[in-house]
């Protein structure tokens, strides 16, 4: 009898402990998973890809190539988060940069922060590197266009149901004369239904 009750206690304890243990599962980074309905990696990748595709399919690029005989040089500037969520715009900027570089249709220059680090390195090389390996100052590629934008949201709610509307606006501005050569817009609408019952 004692052995029997001991068995049940051990079984119950092991079941309880297994319920408490942490589980980890590796997922494909491309897999679409929505947990809370908030802006996530899928939205960031999707918006970046579609907007860059749109930007590169417009006539500004062919006009530039015909006029200058080279691909335009682009830099991604500030993308303001005007939404109601704490969105890490750095990952969104990184997605845009990747899409732009991988398209092969534009040339790309590093951001202001990265440039400063490289300039510091060049200054250091100026003092310490050999003549044959030293990189000179004043050889940087100047960007022709800067991409800027903002992420906005509108939230409508009724009880446990929410509609979240995200609008991403990007624009490409000529650095020489402030002309806007492309304006893109991408909208995402999400219907989020929260459960009325929890554990």
């Amino acid at each position, binding site marked *: 009898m004692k052995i029997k009750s001991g068995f049940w206690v051990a079984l119950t304890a092991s079941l309880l402990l297994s319920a408490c243990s942490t589980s980890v599962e590796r997922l494909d980074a491309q897999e679409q998973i929505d947990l809370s309905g908030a802006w996530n990696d899928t939205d960031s990748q999707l918006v970046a890809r579609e907007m860059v595709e749109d930007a590169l399919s417009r006539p500004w690029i062919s006009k530039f190539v015909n006029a200058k005989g080279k691909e335009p040089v682009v830099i991604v500037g500030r993308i303001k988060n005007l939404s109601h969520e*704490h969105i890490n715009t750095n990952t969104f900027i990184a997605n845009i940069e990747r899409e732009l570089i991988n398209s092969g249709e534009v040339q790309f220059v590093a951001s202001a922060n990265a440039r400063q680090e490289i300039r510091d390195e060049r200054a250091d090389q100026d003092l310490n590197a050999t003549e044959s390996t030293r990189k000179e100052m004043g050889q940087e590629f100047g960007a022709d266009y800067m991409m800027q934008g903002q992420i906005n*949201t509108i939230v409508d*709610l009724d009880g*446990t149901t929410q509609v979240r509307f995200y609008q991403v606006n990007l624009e490409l501005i000529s650095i020489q004369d402030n002309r806007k050569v492309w304006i893109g817009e991408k909208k995402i609408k999400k219907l989020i239904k*929260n*459960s009325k*019952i*929890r554990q």
Partner: protein
Amino acid sequence: MRNAIIVILLLLTTGCSLQQHSNNQLANQLLHENPEKILSILQEDTPNERDFAQYHLNLGYLQLLSGEFIPAIESLTQAKQKMQSLNATSISENIGAGTVNETLRSYSGYPSDRVMVHNMLALSYLFNQDIEGARVEMLQADIAMKKLAEDKSLVGQLASTHLLSAIVYELLDERSNAFISYQLAEEILTERKMAVPEGIKIALLRMSDKMGNDQAYTRLSKKYPQSVQKSYSGKQIFSLYFDGVVSNKRQESLTVPSFSGRQIIRISMPAYPKVNYNLQRIKITDDIQNVSSEVIENIENLAREDLAHDYPEILLATTTRATIKYAAVKAADKKDPLLGAVFNILSVISEVADLRSWNMLPSTIQFSYLQSNSNNIVISSLNSQDNNLDISEANQHIILSSSLSNNLFHYQQ
């Protein structure tokens, strides 16, 4: 076996009430000890899972007052997410609360807590030099207030949140949004029959003037003739001041013998004591002017308003629980009078009111506004030493001070 269950239940119920008691004591200590000291005591504590949100609200607030902005953001965000996740109803917790007491329900925050958490988060982001993070919190606060809005009720509608939104918008040069938020703050104060601080009157005039909204400016000039200024230029100082510590709830119990005299029936309800708070103001002076802070949020009243809003529900749950306990004791008594007596003792001991609240918040939040051409200002209060602040490096300044310490937090741009 039966004895063991009884002991466990007793320990559980006394554990809950002891936790509440120590938390309330710690909040009372805040009036005599600095926030850093209370924070270190609180950090040694491990909260019960059901008190997670309450613990992190208090923790985050103390971290903010201690100048630990990043930890404050983490703690308050955890509390915010927990309160959001507790929006849904839990069947197991309802059963526990319906049969034992209300403390078996997770603390999901009162309506004011759900909005106030955004204020504290916004201030933490702001003093962490992240005004865009503060803006996000203000947008979320707006959604939270819309969710809580009920017809003809001001539950969960905070003038301080609209004011903070307005200041953040003004600093970001979003004039229209700022004007709307100042108006909303004014509306709530008027509906609550509170005096509109001079700083808000001036802000309404300033924003309507800057937007070129002549119609609104004329209307507001007639409404607040004393607040019309010759010029709305100069360095802007927005000052927020946290005064005191909000009251704790206390338990009010009624113990009566049953009709047959075979049982003791007890009901316990939470209540707030009479407000025992002496308002203190701060003064801000430059070379020429002198402004006093004015109340923008009376948290003592908000806490009582929140409890009054929930009171019918708590009363219904308490009386239903008393009926269930009565029936259970009666059934046990029928089987075995000794068991019935033990059940009766348990039912009485376990009947405790839920005294949890965000009980380290200030009693009032006060606001003052100064437009100055000086390079220095002095912030003075009765309880602490004067603080001199250099404002020469920027044109817009937000400062936060508290009656609980000499810390002064400053954001400038």
